[in-house]
């Protein structure tokens, strides 16, 4: 049987505001201390009223810009009505017909094929999160517990077109989205803590007699890991293709099904709907007023955007000559790492050299010390200065490593290091390359005159230039630092003349 999986994602992202969307309660993950981040507004107490957090809207609009979404100048709030114990007002303040943004896209690269694909976005809207229900899992039917700490947290809902064609693409899309949201610092996207959650809509287009027949759409709810998204989608594709072979049910012949994902058992299971008859009865929230944003305000927000991951990858490859792989490694480390890379490579003027050092020497230190780049003690300007000397030929790579090690020793002793520290290390350790041709010439002469080198000298003279290697090594050792290329040329010139 031949079929194409059709997948669309709905992603919920908690925004990094200090306070909740409609009240002043603190917005942070605090599951061990239930019902302490609550007030009349987020408890939905009679008489309380919501007032919108300006920063939540700003972060949302910033996100929309990064996701290539169109921004609406006029937007408003609607009530989405359903009953659940974690939703104290029995409606969620959300956006219905006039979301603040619509029609965007995210570009993702498939690791398996290297193919560049574009996932279109239908919209992103802002809404309030619900609280948390904790169920008794003993099977004894004890009461469920309700914690409203999370109620009212600003939540961005991002809805894709059903453009995704594989479980791999679903995972990569989500990874790229998370990377992007972290770059622009709108969310920490911590999936364990639920600040990034995903629902997947999956069905198949089955090819039969030259016709593509859509199967019923299934929504898999609350996927909270990248692996979970990939596995759940893969499971659904297999399950649905089997189902098609047995029941031949087409889209529209059965109601849309909602399924849960059991990560432990690795399967999806049928879920009972929240509302026996789902009818959200959306209508404009009369307690909130519309939001109007001007072009000038959009420009101000746009100015706060950083260079996005995809743009950086392309630039590193095209402008700095990095391999696609290295560019990916650097960008995927996150915004701080990439910013560090940018600064070092600007100072030293060589992207490849910078990439080598960052993905090897620096990364090794970070791993050993179990720290992030933000905590790394050598400032980008200082490392850039070390690399710049290598690139300029002032010191050798080996000397560069010595300087690097010494810089780390100094910082481990609690000292600050600067470009001047680099100068003093090179001077103290005599790591600078010898520039005085008279001295170099004298050193070469000493090596040539050494009896032990007679055979090598003779070989070079007779045209076997590869024999020059050991001679260069001895000269270099004597000089502590010199440019090996010019030493080589000087030895050959001397012996051949």
């Amino acid at each position, binding site marked *: 049987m031949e079929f194409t999986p059709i997948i669309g994602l709905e992603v919920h992202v908690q925004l990094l505001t200090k306070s909740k969307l409609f009240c*002043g309660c603190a917005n942070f993950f605090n599951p061990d201390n*239930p019902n*302490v981040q*609550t007030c009349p507004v987020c408890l939905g107490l009679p008489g309380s009223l919501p007032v*919108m957090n300006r920063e939540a809207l700003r972060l949302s609009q910033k996100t929309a810009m990064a996701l290539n979404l169109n921004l609406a100048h006029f937007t*408003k709030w609607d009530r989405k009505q359903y009953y659940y114990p974690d939703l104290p007002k029995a409606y969620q303040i959300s956006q219905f017909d006039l979301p603040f943004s619509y029609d965007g896209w995210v570009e993702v690269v498939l690791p398996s094929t290297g193919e560049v694909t574009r996932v279109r976005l239908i919209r992103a809207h802002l809404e309030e999160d619900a609280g948390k229900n904790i169920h008794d899992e003993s099977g004894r039917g004890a009461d469920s517990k309700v914690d409203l700490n999370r109620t009212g947290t600003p939540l961005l809902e991002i809805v894709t077109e059903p453009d995704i064609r594989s479980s791999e693409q679903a995972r990569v899309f989500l990874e790229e989205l998370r990377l992007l949201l972290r770059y622009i610092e709108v969310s920490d996207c911590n999936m364990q803590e639920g600040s990034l959650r995903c629902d997947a809509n999956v069905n198949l287009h089955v090819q039969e007699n030259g016709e593509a027949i859509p199967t019923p759409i299934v929504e898999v709810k609350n996927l909270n890991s990248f692996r979970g998204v990939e596995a759940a989608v893969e499971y659904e594709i297999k399950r649905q293709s089997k189902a098609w072979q047995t029941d031949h049910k087409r889209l529209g012949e059965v109601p849309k099904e909602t399924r849960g994902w059991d990560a432990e058992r690795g399967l999806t299971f*049928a879920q009972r709907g929240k509302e026996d008859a789902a009818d959200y009865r959306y209508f404009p929230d009369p307690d909130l007023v519309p939001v109007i944003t001007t072009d000038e305000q959009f420009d101000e927000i746009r100015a706060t955007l950083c260079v996005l991951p995809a743009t950086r990858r392309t630039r590193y490859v095209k402008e700095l000559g990095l391999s696609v792989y290295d560019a990916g490694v650097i960008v995927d480390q996150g915004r701080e790492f990439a910013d560090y890379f940018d600064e070092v490579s600007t100072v030293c003027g060589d992207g490849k050299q910078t990439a080598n050092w960052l993905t090897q020497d620096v990364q090794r230190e970070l791993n050993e010390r179990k720290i992030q780049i933000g905590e790394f003690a050598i400032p980008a300007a200082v490392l850039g200065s070390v690399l710049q000397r290598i690139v300029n030929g002032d010191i050798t790579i080996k000397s560069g490593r010595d300087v690097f090690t010494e810089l780390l020793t100094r910082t481990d002793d609690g000292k600050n290091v600067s470009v001047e520290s680099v100068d003093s290390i090179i001077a103290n350790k005599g790591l600078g390359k010898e520039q005085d041709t008279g001295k170099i010439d004298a050193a070469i002469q000493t090596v040539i005159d050494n009896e032990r080198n007679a055979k090598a000298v003779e070989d070079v003279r007779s045209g076997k230039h590869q024999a020059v290697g050991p001679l260069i090594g001895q000269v270099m050792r004597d000089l502590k630092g010199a440019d090996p290329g010019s030493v080589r040329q000087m030895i050959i010139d001397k012996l051949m003349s």
Partner: protein
Amino acid sequence: MLSPEDVQKVATLARLKLSTEELQQVSRQLDGILDYVAVLNEVDVSNVEPMAHVADVANAFREDEVRASLPREESLSNAPKTDGKYFLVPQILETA
């Protein structure tokens, strides 16, 4: 005319448990009211924008500042059932 099924569906959406007599009574009264509001059919509203807000206000924001929450005892003080930390509700069945 609303059928008893229609009215029951509304009652379900409204989360109101109504007895058969209540359903019949409400059904009659709703019919009466819907008959009455049918007067709006006379009004030509083509080219009229709906008016959701009467106050001419937009962009009412608060700054992103943390304000004191209620102490937990006060948040739970009106709860019909609580263990002192959580609101308690009868078991919610999530899986069928």
